[in-house]
């Protein structure tokens, strides 16, 4: 059998890729996708730990993370599309109307 560590290392890798994506990309939608990768990494860790301990709680948490992801995607994409309509650009370093 595969030790739980393998799953945790996989989830750590996924989390790092996601966090890196947020930090290096310019496009708001890609940044958002990278954030989804981070949430998935957390979910993976939850499921692996749930399996390790043989309790249900981690799976319940995954359920809520998915709900939150759905709520965030609704608001986030609405904001991104709205700003595209006014600015015709969604690269975050082009959004510099607010520099003091």
């Amino acid at each position: 059998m595969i030790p739980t560590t393998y799953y945790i290392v996989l989830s750590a890798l996924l989390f790092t890729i996601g966090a890196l994506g947020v930090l290096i990309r310019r496009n708001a939608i890609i940044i958002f996708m990278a954030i989804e990768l981070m949430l998935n990494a957390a979910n993976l860790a939850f499921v692996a730990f749930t399996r390790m301990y043989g309790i249900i709680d981690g799976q319940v948490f995954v359920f809520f993370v998915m709900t939150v992801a759905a709520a965030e995607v609704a608001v986030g994409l609405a904001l991104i599309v709205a700003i595209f309509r006014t600015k015709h650009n969604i690269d975050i370093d082009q959004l510099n109307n607010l520099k003091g």
Partner: protein
Amino acid sequence: MTGMDSLFLIFAVITLISAFLVVTTKNLFHAALWLIMTLFGVAAIYVLLNAFYLAVIQVIVYIGAIAILMIFAIMLTQRVMNPSGRIFNKNWIIAALLGAFMFIGLVIISMQTGASKTTLPQISGQLDTVSELGQALVSPNAYVIPFEVASVLLLAALIGAIFVSRKR
């Protein structure tokens, strides 16, 4: 190496490669497709971990709703075929170093933990996770508060999304 082990390896590699491509691909639409691939990979690993119900939910909610919504947003905001300009921002070197540092830290820590010595316990055949999950979600002694809050959260998000996308 048993069948399970090789399945895990295959899906892990698929997940990681597609996740990497999500954050490095130039074309937004391709990135969304790679995201779907990653989400499938994660769903497959859920199956390996006996979380069948979550695997199904992952496909329905994440791929069926979230990823598709993202593709909609891409269609609405970009000239899909020929994106222009740099794809990375100025900080990518620092960010890459930071990422490598963070990853090494996480791996070292997780290697040290007790989890590395424990292999997964065998699951007895008739474990009914779906009804257990359902019970846990609505029981006052378990997760009824988060469950109700999640519904309020969705309502608030709904109002917000409608407000933002409504025409003046």
